[in-house]
């Protein structure tokens, strides 16, 4: 508030000061010119009439006295006439008649034979000295000295300044009052925005808000709407997730129930049947376990503050370890698991998570492969990133499904899901881990030929 007052006042004060100073200078200049003109004319008259001559007509002298008196009254000043002997012959103050003038300005005038004027700021007066001589002649008959007070200008200037400041204060007060009321009006649309948002928060409103009064409010409401949409979609996906989870969790339980019921319902079931059914139930329990484990992993990654346990790790050896762990599974399916293009590279990563991510990819490559197929794992790197690709010659993924494979619980064609084990969370988890590392994952696939997953991870995580 105070800042406003100061900002309001200062330019005004400066403006007033400038204008007032300007007025003073101008007024003084004008006065000087006016008086100088009068003096000039008077000098001419004196010179041509020869009033200062020793034998001049006394009438002329009287006329001169009167003229000088009039002039001095009009301009509130003092006029002196100095003759060629430097004697003061006329003085409208009647103080110095017949005295000798030794004034610097008079002497300068006699020497230079030119008119001169100056303004004494401290003592507040203008002085003009004009030579009395016939035009064309070089003979100085005398000098006319006019002193005019400028106090009236100083006083007017002061008065103007005071008025100016007064006006400014009034204007500032007015502006403040106006501002207060206007401000209220101007801010109203923003208040509306606040209310709209509060309504949505409280649950009264379910739709997008709109306050189009200002561009700014429009921008705010649009941004809010976008956020709302995103929150809604997140909410929706969460609901979807919960329903998916419930569904997935129920499936093994349903199978188990069926098996258990059928065992219970029958009489005299041979032991082999019991053993077979128990085996099936165990598989279902394992399956349920896997789902829950994966879910937990998923959820842990989901939390916004999922932290990366960063350490500098040699990627090649990490991949080798993963490959080594999966060899038994590959062998079972008679798939050849090969690491290609190994060049050691160190990067700043979370070893546990990335191992899991690559493990998922390689496991998938094995699972969705053909008998006697192959899986190639390649590691490359440049100055900024390292690149891992996992390629297989397996079943492939149809193009229309390639986008959806990273979704949770998505398992491609139903025909595959029944024969190949899996929770449908593996790729979702992998993608989360890659994204946590600020990396990129892409898929290339052709049905019947194979699939290649490409992962790119930055070597350093900037904090």
């Amino acid at each position, binding site marked *: 508030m105070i800042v406003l007052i100061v900002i309001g006042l200062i330019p005004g004060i400066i403006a007033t000061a400038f204008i007032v100073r300007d007025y003073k200078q101008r007024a003084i200049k004008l006065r000087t010119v006016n008086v100088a003109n009068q003096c000039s004319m008077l000098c001419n008259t004196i010179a041509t009439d020869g009033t200062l001559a020793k034998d001049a007509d006394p009438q002329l002298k009287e006329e001169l006295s009167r003229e000088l008196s009039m002039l001095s009254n009009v301009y509130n000043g003092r006029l002196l006439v100095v003759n060629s002997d430097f004697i003061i012959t006329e003085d409208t*103050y009647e*103080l110095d008649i017949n005295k000798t003038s030794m004034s610097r300005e008079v*002497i*300068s005038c*006699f020497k230079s034979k030119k008119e001169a004027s100056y303004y004494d700021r401290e003592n507040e007066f203008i002085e003009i000295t004009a030579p009395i001589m016939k035009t064309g002649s070089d003979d100085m008959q005398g000098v006319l000295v006019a002193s005019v*007070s400028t106090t009236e200008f100083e006083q007017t200037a002061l008065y103007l300044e005071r008025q100016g400041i007064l006006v400014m204060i009034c204007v500032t007060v007015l502006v403040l009052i106006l501002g207060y009321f206007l401000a209220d009006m101007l801010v109203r649309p923003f208040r509306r925005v606040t209310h709209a948002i509060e309504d949505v928060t409280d649950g009264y409103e379910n739709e997008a808000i709109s306050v189009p009064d200002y561009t700014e409010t429009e921008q705010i409401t649009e941004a809010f709407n976008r956020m709302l949409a995103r929150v809604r979609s997140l909410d929706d996906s969460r609901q979807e997730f919960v329903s998916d989870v419930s569904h997935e969790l129920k499936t093994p339980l349903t199978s188990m129930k069926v098996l258990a019921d059928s065992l219970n319902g029958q009489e005299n079931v041979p032991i082999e049947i019991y053993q077979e059914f128990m085996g099936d139930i165990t598989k279902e329990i394992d399956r349920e376990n896997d789902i829950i484990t994966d879910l937990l992993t998923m959820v842990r990654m989901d939390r916004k503050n999922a932290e990366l346990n960063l350490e500098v790790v040699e990627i090649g050896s990490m991949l080798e370890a993963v490959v080594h762990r999966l060899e038994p599974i590959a062998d079972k399916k008679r798939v050849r698991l090969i690491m290609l293009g190994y060049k050691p590279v160190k990067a700043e990563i979370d070893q546990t998570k990335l191992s899991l991510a690559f493990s998922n990819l390689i496991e998938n490559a094995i699972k969705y492969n053909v008998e006697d197929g192959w899986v190639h794992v390649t590691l490359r790197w440049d100055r900024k990133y390292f690149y891992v690709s996992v390629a297989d010659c397996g079943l492939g993924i149809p193009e229309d499904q390639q986008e959806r494979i990273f979704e949770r619980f998505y398992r491609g064609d139903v025909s595959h899901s029944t024969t190949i084990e899996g929770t449908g969370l593996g790729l979702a988890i992998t993608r989360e881990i890659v994204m946590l590392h600020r990396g990129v994952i892409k898929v290339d696939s052709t049905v019947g030929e194979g699939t290649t997953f490409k992962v790119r991870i930055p070597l350093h995580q900037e904090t």
Partner: protein
Amino acid sequence: MKMKYALRRLLLLLMVILLAALYGCGKEADDAADEKDTTKIQIYYLDRGETYLRPQDYDLGDKTGKAAVNAVQLALGAEPDDASEEKLLPDGVEIVNTELEEDKFRLTINFSASYAEMEKTREVLVRAGVVRTFCQIDGIRYVRFQVDGKEATDADGNQLNIMNNDSFVENAKQINAYKKTHVSLYFASADGKHLVKEMRSVRYNTSKPLAWAVVDRLIAGPQGKNAVASLPSSTSIISVTEADGICYVNLSQSFITDQSDMAAEVPIYSIVNSICDTCREVDKVQLSVEGNPRTYFRTDISLDQPFEEDMSLVETTSESESGTLSS
């Protein structure tokens, strides 16, 4: 221990005070001695453009009278220290001799013949500078010029008057210091026995007291036709001061010496009444001649007591017919 410490500090303080007192006394004595022993005046030089006078301090020492005059004469002929100035007298012009009439407070200066050949503007400044310089010497109030033994004249051959400090006018720097006011002046009646009142509107320089202007106007004389000047026109005012309601007016010798045949009270009460009537804050006026109040005016009126206003002398019938507003 504590006692000893306090005592020492007290002693120290006393010593300091004592020293200060002694120093102060000594200085005063010195100052007084200084003032008595040496006089400082100002010698005037010219600026290089030869348009105005520039004063420089000059120590006269303890010289007075003719000795002082000679010293100043020498100084005027010397080159100034400041390079932006030149000495007053141009080359070729010099003071040949001087004559001091102490009873008349008058100094006559005789210049060489080349004085008359000086350029007019230079001559005016030389005149003013010389007069002003010499008038600072105690006892010199008037200066008379001679050129080559003869009375100095102006360009038209008219004799130059005897000059004093007031003969020269510098710039009216304080034009705003001039105020217009009404004064009551009491001049002598035509028969010299009474006083006649004249009201006037005059301008005066506020740097001098109003009483000064009053006496000045009295000396200048009346404007009305049935009044006569009460003071001799050769009178000059040496000083006018005011204190505690008493105005001290110091006039030159000619106040007494230039006799006129009017009643003795007239000149005195002309001054007293004028001042008391015009200046509200003044009740009494003390006159003195040449600084000496113990003189007698016309052998029977002593001036050693201040006078109070006495309206009995004033002619009641007429105010002067010209109550003109002169500005």
